[in-house]
C-alpha cells in the first residue's frame, strides 16, 4: 500500500491535518476566534494567509480549527457505522431467518438517499455534534450491512466453515474466527469511504444550516456564512472549500489504495501488468 507514492501522500495529508488541528492552539499566531471589526473581509496577506471573514477573524486559523469537528465527526461515524454494519451484516449473512428481517429494514432505509435520511433525522433530533454523528451513522450503516452480508454469503458455503463445525466450534467463534477475518478487507475499505462521505455530509448539513451549531467553526458552517460574501470576498469560501476537497480526496485515495493492497486480484493484475511492461521495455 505504501509502495505507491500517491497513497503515501494521501496518508501524509491526513496526518498533517490531524496534527495541525490538534496542536492549533499552541502554534497559531492569532486566535482564530478573535474578533476584530477593523479587519473585516481582508484579502490574503502576510498577516492573514487566507484573509479574514466578516467578523475580522483569521480564516487560516478557522480552517485549521474547523478540521477538528470534521475529522472527529467523520471518524466517529465511520467507526460506528462500520461496527453496526459489520454486526448486522454478519448476523444477516449467517442466519437465514434473521436475514429476512434485517434486510427488509435495510432495504427500507436504503430507499432514502442517505443525505436526505440524515437531514430528516437531524431536523427531528436538533442540530448538534452528537446528533449529527447519530444521524450520519444511522444513514450510512445500511450500505455496510449489505456489503458485509454479501461477503459472508460468499464465505459461508466454503469447506473450512463446515470443517470448523465438525470440530465442534460454536457459531459465535465461527463468525469471529473464521468468517470475520476473511472479510476484513472490504470492511476496512468501505469504512474509509464512509469516513470521506461523512465529512462531506457533515459539511453539507452545516451548510444547509441544520448541522453543527453556528458558533462552532466547521467547514460547512464557514461556507454557509461565506456564501453572502462570495462576490466581494471569494477567499472566504474558497479556502474551506479547498480543505474539504483535499481531505475527501485524500480519504478516497487511501480507500482505493487499501482496496488495491488488500485485494489479491488487483495486486496480482497490477504486478503482472508491470512485468509485461518491463518485458516490452527490455525487448525494445
Amino acid at each position: 500500500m505504501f509502495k505507491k507514492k500517491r497513497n503515501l501522500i494521501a496518508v501524509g495529508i491526513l496526518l498533517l491535518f490531524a496534527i495541525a488541528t490538534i496542536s492549533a492552539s499552541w502554534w497559531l499566531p492569532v486566535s482564530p476566534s478573535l474578533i476584530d471589526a477593523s479587519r473585516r473581509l481582508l484579502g490574503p496577506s502576510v498577516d492573514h494567509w487566507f484573509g479574514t471573514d466578516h467578523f475580522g477573524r483569521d480564516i487560516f486559523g478557522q480552517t485549521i480549527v474547523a478540521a477538528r469537528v470534521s475529522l472527529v465527526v467523520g471518524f466517529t461515524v465511520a467507526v460506528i457505522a462500520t461496527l453496526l454494519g459489520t454486526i448486522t451484516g454478519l448476523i444477516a449473512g449467517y442466519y437465514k431467518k434473521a436475514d429476512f428481517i434485517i434486510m427488509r429494514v435495510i432495504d427500507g432505509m436504503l430507499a432514502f438517499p442517505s443525505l436526505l435520511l440524515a437531514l430528516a433525522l437531524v431536523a427531528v433530533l436538533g442540530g448538534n455534534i452528537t446528533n449529527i454523528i447519530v444521524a450520519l451513522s444511522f444513514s450510512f450503516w445500511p450500505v455496510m450491512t449489505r456489503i458485509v452480508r454479501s461477503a459472508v454469503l460468499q464465505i459461508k458455503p466454503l469447506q473450512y466453515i463446515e470443517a470448523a463445525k465438525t470440530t465442534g466450534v460454536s457459531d459465535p467463534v465461527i463468525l469471529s474466527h473464521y468468517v470475520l477475518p476473511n472479510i476484513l478487507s472490504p470492511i476496512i475499505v468501505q469504512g474509509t469511504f464512509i469516513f470521506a462521505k461523512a465529512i462531506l455530509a457533515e459539511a453539507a448539513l452545516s451548510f444547509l444550516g441544520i448541522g453543527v451549531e453556528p458558533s462552532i467553526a466547521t467547514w460547512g458552517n464557514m461556507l454557509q456564512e461565506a456564501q453572502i460574501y462570495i462576490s466581494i470576498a471569494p477567499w472566504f469560501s474558497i479556502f474551506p472549500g479547498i480543505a474539504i476537497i483535499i481531505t475527501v480526496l485524500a480519504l478516497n485515495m487511501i480507500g482505493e489504495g487499501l482496496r488495491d493492497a488488500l485485494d489479491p486480484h488487483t495486486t496480482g493484475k497490477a504486478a503482472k501488468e508491470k512485468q509485461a511492461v518491463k518485458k516490452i521495455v527490455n525487448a525494445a
Partner: protein
Amino acid sequence: MLEVKNLKVQIDTAEGIVQAVDRVSFRVEAGQTLGIVGESGSGKSVLAHSIIQLNPKPATIYPEGEIIFEGKNLLELREKALRKIRGNEIAMVFQDPMSSLNPVFKIGSQLIEAIITNQKMSKKQAKARAIELLRDVGIPDPKRRMQDYPHQLSGGMRQRVLIAIALAGNPKLLIADEPTTALDVTIQAQILELLRKVQKKYKMAIILISHDLGVISQIADNVLVMYSGRIVEDGSVNDIFYRTTMPYTWSLLRSLPRLDGQRHERLINIEGQPPNLISPPKGCNFHPRCPFATDKCLKIDPELTYRSKGHSAACILSEQEFMDGKERIEATEKERGALTYDRTTA
C-alpha cells in the same frame, strides 16, 4: 458403537422433496472401517452428514429412523450436546483439502484451537500436543510447519493437517468424505496408509466415503453400496468385490478401467443417468439402467435380502439367474468388442 436404523433423510428443495437417504441401516464397530461407495448423487454424503447432523438445517427432515452412537440417539440431541460430540467423539475429514483450512490463520493456531475447543488444556500443553499430532500424521519438521499458512502447503500436506485437526479431540469415529479424491494417486496411497496407521493408534472406527472402488478395496473391512439413496448391497470387501450377485455392483466393478486391458478396448459404462429422487421410478430404482432387468423389476421394489453370512443385496434375481444373465451379457459384449477391435487394427 454406531448403529443407524432404518434412516430416512428428506431434503426440501424448490422442485420438491428429495428422498436423499431411504431406509438405511448399518453398524460400525470400534476399530473397523466401513466403506460407502456409490455414484455422485447416490446419497452417500448426505448420509455421512446426517450422522453428525450437518445437513443444511431447516431444509433437511429426518422423518424416520435412529442414529444410535454409544447409546444416544443423535437425532434427538440438542445443538449444544451435538457440538460436544462433534470433534470430541465424531470427527470428519473432507474431500477438498485446498478449501478446508481457514486461509487467514497459521496451521499451528488452527490446530491449537481445535485442541482447546475439545479439551481443557493450557496453551502450552496444546502446542506440544499439536506438534505431536503433526508428527503423527507424518509432517516433517512439525515445529516449523506450525508457522505456515495453508497456502504454503501442498494438497497432500494440507490433508494431513486436516487429519491432525480431526484427531485433535481423540474421536472414536472418523468420517472421511472422499478424503483422497482431490489428490494424485501416489499421495492417495500415502493418505490411505496414514488413515490406517492413525486408526490403529487411536483405535477409531472409520467411515470412508468414496466413489473410487480402488480406495475402498484397500482400506475397508465392510462395504455398503448405495444407489439412489438406498443400500443395494452390504457385505465384507470380499463379498462385494468377488462374490457379488447384484447387477448394480457388478456394473460398477466392470466399469473400472483396467491398466492391463487392450489399448483400444471400449470403456464400459452404465448407460443412463441416476434416477430423479423427487419422483423415483416404479419398482426397482435401478431397473431403467439394469442390463438384467425383466418385467418383474418394474413391479417389485426389492428389499435387502440375506445372501450369506454378513452379506445381503437388494435384487430379485437368484444367484443362478444372475450367473446366466452375466454370461449372456459378456458374450454379446465380447462380440461387439471384437468387432471394434478389428476395425481399429485394420
